[in-house]
C-alpha cells in the first residue's frame, strides 16, 4: 500500500481565474416585493447588503415592519382566494415550470450574485446552488396536477378536520409564511416556494438579512414569469420582521429553516394556534470512517462534509469518527489534503473555501475555536494565507475532541471539524446518536452489510454512505429530534403544504 503524500500544492500554481461580474444586473436599492410589485417599506428604512469577501456594500435592502408584513400577508390571502386556489393544478404547474426555465436561463447571473452576497465559492453557486434551485422548481411543477397520487386516502380522515382535508382530495393550506437562512439563499427559497405553489398555497417569504439579493432577483424573475400578483411575496428584514410574520394571525403555515434556538421559539409561539409548522433546524452530523473504508475517497468525503460552503451547512459532517486502526493514516491524509485547499476570493473559479458569511458568524466561529482550545480539544489549522479584507477562517480541526466537549456537542456552522476515534461498531453508534440533533450522518466502509447496519441505526434524517453532502429535488431532506420535523424534497416534501 502506498501512502504517498499529496504534493499538489507544490506541483501546481493556480493563476487567478475570477468570474466576470460585468454581466450581472443589480440595483442600488431594493424594495419589498408585495402583490406583484416592488414597493417602498413603510418605515422608509433600508439596510446594506455586504460582500463578505470585500466588506463592500453591494446594494441596499428594505426593512419590512409589521405594517409591511401585514400588507404582504393580505396580498397573499387575496391571491389565494381570488386566483390561486381556483386555478387547476395543471395551470399552476405551468407557471412553476416557467420559473424553473427562467432561472436556468439566468443561472450564471444568479450564481455570481449569490457568491458576491454570501461569500460562497463560485464553483459551488454555479454548479450546485443555482442548478439545484432551478431543478427544484422543475420537479415540483410536475406535481401540481398529480397531488391525488401523493397521499391516497388521506383526505378520508374526516374527524381531524383541522389537519386533514375533505374526502379523498389533497387540499392546500392557504398562506404559507417561509423564513430561510443565509447559507443557501436561493436554494432554500426554491425548497420553500416550489412545493408550496405546487400544492396550491400562496407565499410570503423572508430571506436572511445578510443574503437577500438572490431572493429579490427571484422576485424580479417571478414578476417576469407572469405569476399572478400576490402568489409569491418576498419581504426583507431581520429577526423582528420574521417574528412579525410568524405571529401574524392571517397565515396558515410556517416553514422555517434556521437555528434550533429560533426554531424552538417559533414552535412555542405557534402553540395553541391552527398554524401548521415544519422546521429544518441545526445539526451536528457524525461522519464515520471504518478501517475497511476506501481511505482516499473517505478523506475527500471528510473534506466535502465539513468544508463545503465554509461549513455553513446544517447537515455538515462536523463530527468525524475514525476507527482506531486507520486513525493515524486518515488524519495524516486529511491534513495533507487540507493544505491544498484554496481559501480566498469566492468569485475565483479555483477557490475551495470562500468567505465566512458575516462578521457576526465569524465571531461565533472564533468563539467556538477559543472554547475548543480551552477545552484542550487539540487545535489544528492549515497554513494558508487569508486575504486582509473580508471575513475568513482557516480550515480547522480539533484532534483530541471528546464527547462532552462543546465543539462536539454544539453546532459551530463553520469550517471546524471535531475529531474522535472509536474501536467498535456499538461504540460509534452510541457516540453518533448521543446528541440532541439528528439531521444527517455519513458512513464510510467497503462492506455492504455494515453500511446497512449503520444507516438503519443512526438516528438521522439523511444518511450518506460512501458519499456526503449530496442533494436532489427528488430526495427528502429533514431531521430527527431537535433537528426539526417535516421533510423538504421528494414526495414526502409535499405533505408540509397539504391538509
Amino acid at each position, binding site marked *: 500500500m502506498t501512502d504517498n503524500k499529496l504534493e499538489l500544492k507544490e506541483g501546481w500554481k493556480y493563476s487567478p481565474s475570477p468570474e466576470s461580474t460585468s454581466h450581472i444586473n443589480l440595483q442600488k436599492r431594493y424594495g419589498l416585493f408585495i402583490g406583484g410589485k416592488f414597493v417602498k417599506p413603510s418605515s422608509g428604512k433600508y439596510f446594506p447588503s455586504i460582500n463578505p469577501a470585500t466588506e463592500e456594500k453591494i446594494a441596499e435592502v428594505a426593512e419590512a415592519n409589521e405594517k409591511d408584513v401585514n400588507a404582504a400577508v393580505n396580498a397573499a390571502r387575496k391571491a389565494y382566494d381570488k386566483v390561486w386556489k381556483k386555478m387547476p393544478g395543471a395551470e399552476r404547474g405551468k407557471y412553476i415550470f416557467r420559473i424553473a426555465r427562467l432561472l436556468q436561463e439566468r443561472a450564471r447571473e444568479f450564481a455570481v450574485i449569490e457568491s458576491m452576497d454570501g461569500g460562497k465559492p463560485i464553483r459551488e453557486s454555479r454548479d450546485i446552488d443555482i442548478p439545484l434551485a432551478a*431543478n427544484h422548481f422543475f420537479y415540483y411543477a410536475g406535481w401540481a396536477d398529480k397531488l391525488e397520487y401523493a*397521499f391516497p*386516502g*388521506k383526505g*378520508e*380522515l*374526516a*374527524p*381531524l378536520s*383541522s389537519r*386533514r382535508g375533505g374526502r379523498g382530495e389533497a387540499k392546500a393550506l392557504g398562506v404559507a409564511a417561509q423564513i430561510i437562512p443565509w447559507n443557501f439563499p436561493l436554494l432554500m427559497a426554491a425548497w420553500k416556494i416550489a412545493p408550496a405553489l405546487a400544492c396550491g398555497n400562496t407565499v410570503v417569504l423572508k430571506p436572511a438579512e445578510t443574503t437577500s439579493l438572490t431572493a429579490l432577483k427571484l422576485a424580479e424573475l417571478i414578476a417576469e414569469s407572469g405569476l399572478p400578483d400576490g402568489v409569491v411575496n418576498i419581504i426583507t428584514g431581520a429577526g423582528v420582521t420574521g417574528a412579525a410574520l410568524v405571529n401574524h394571525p392571517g397565515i396558515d403555515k410556517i416553514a422555517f429553516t434556521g437555528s*434550533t434556538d429560533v*426554531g*424552538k*421559539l417559533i*414552535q*412555542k409561539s*405557534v*402553540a*395553541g394556534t391552527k398554524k401548521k409548522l415544519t*422546521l429544518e*433546524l441545526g445539526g451536528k452530523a457524525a461522519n464515520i470512517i471504518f478501517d475497511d473504508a476506501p481511505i482516499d475517497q473517505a478523506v475527500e468525503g471528510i473534506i466535502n462534509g465539513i468544508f463545503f460552503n465554509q461549513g455553513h451547512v446544517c447537515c455538515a459532517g462536523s463530527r468525524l469518527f475514525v476507527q482506531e486502526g486507520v486513525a493515524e493514516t486518515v488524519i495524516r491524509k486529511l491534513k495533507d489534503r487540507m493544505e491544498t485547499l484554496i481559501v480566498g476570493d469566492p468569485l475565483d473559479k479555483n477557490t475551495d473555501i470562500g468567505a465566512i458569511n458575516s462578521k457576526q458568524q465569524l465571531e461565533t466561529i472564533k468563539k467556538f475555536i477559543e472554547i475548543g482550545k480551552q477545552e484542550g480539544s487539540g487545535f489544528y489549522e492549515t497554513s494558508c494565507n487569508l486575504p486582509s479584507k473580508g471575513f475568513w477562517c482557516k480550515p480547522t480541526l480539533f484532534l483530541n475532541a471528546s464527547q462532552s466537549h462543546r465543539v462536539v456537542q454544539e453546532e459551530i456552522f463553520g469550517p471546524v471539524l471535531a475529531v474522535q476515534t472509536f474501536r467498535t461498531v456499538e461504540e460509534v453508534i452510541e457516540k453518533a446518536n448521543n446528541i*440532541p440533533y*439528528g439531521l444527517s450522518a455519513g458512513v464510510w466502509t467497503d462492506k455492504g452489510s455494515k*453500511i446497512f447496519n449503520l*444507516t*438503519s441505526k443512526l*438516528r*438521522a*434524517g*439523511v*444518511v*450518506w*454512505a*460512501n*458519499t456526503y453532502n*449530496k442533494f*436532489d429535488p*427528488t*430526495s*427528502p*431532506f*429533514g431531521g*430527527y*429530534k*431537535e*433537528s*426539526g*420535523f417535516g*421533510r423538504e424534497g*421528494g*414526495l*414526502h416534501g409535499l405533505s408540509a403544504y397539504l391538509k
Partner: protein
Amino acid sequence: MTMEEVQKTYKIYIGGQFPRTESGRYYPLFDKKKKLIANVCLCSKKDHRNAVVAARNVFGAWSGRSAFNRSQILYRIAEMMEGRKDQFIHELLLQGVSSGEAKKEVRLSIDRMVYYAGWCDKYQAVFSSVNPVASSHFNFSVPEPTGVVGILGPESFSLLGLISLIAPVILSGNTCVVLASHSKPLCAVTFAEVLQTSDLPGGVVNILTGTSKELLEHFASHMDVNALLLATGDAASIKMASEKCALNVKRFFDRLGIDWSSDSTQSPYYILDTTEIKTTWHPIENIGAGKAGY
C-alpha cells in the same frame, strides 16, 4: 354460605411490572351507586420519569424486531383481548357505560387491534420511496419510528380510544408512556395485563393512572420523549402542552374531539405521524451502460 369475591388491586404498568405509584397516593373510583370499585394509583412525575426510562431502554430492541414479529405480537394482543372480552365489558359497565355501548366498544377495540396488527409490515411499502436522483446514486426514503411517545388517552372510549392511539404508535417500533382515562381507568389496567401476556416486551407500553392536570406538563416537557399525542383536555391544555413541546422540538398531535367509534379513525396516516422519514444515499458505479441494452 356465600363465597366472597376476590377483588382486584388496580396497579400501574411500567417496564413490564405492575408496581403501585411510588408516591403512595390513590384516588377512589366509585360506581353509580357511590360504591367503591377500586383505589386507583394517582401517579406522580416520578412515575412518569420511571416509565420514560423503561420506554427508552427497550426502544432499540423493539424497533429492532422484525416487522413480521411485531405484527404477530400485535395480533397476539388482539387474541388475548378476545379472551378477556367479558372482563372489559364488565369494567365498562361498572364505570357507567351502557351495556350496548360497552359491547360495541370492546368489539371495535379488538377489531382495531387486528387492523393495526396487519399494518406492521405494510405501511413501509406504502410510505417509502425510491428517489430517482439526477446523480449516480441509489437513494431511498423509509419511515422509521420516532422514539418514545407520550399518549394522554381520552376520557370517553377509555379502551377503544386508548387502543386507537397506542396501536399505530407501537407498530412501527416506537415505545410509549400512556396516561389512562381518569374517570374510567379500569380497562387500561386490564389492557396492561393483556399486554403482559402477549409477548410484548416490557416497557414498550407503559400505562399510568392519575390526572392529566398534574401529569400533562411532565409528559410535554420531558426531554427524552420525542412526540406527544393529546386526546384529553381543553384549548388551554393544548396551548400549554404544545409550548412545552418546543423545549426539545417534540412532535405534537392534538387528538381531541375524535369519535373513536368511527371507522375513519383507523388509518395508516396515524402510523406516519410518529415516524421519521430517513433518506439513504449510496453511489452507483456507472460502467457498462452501453452493454446493458439487451
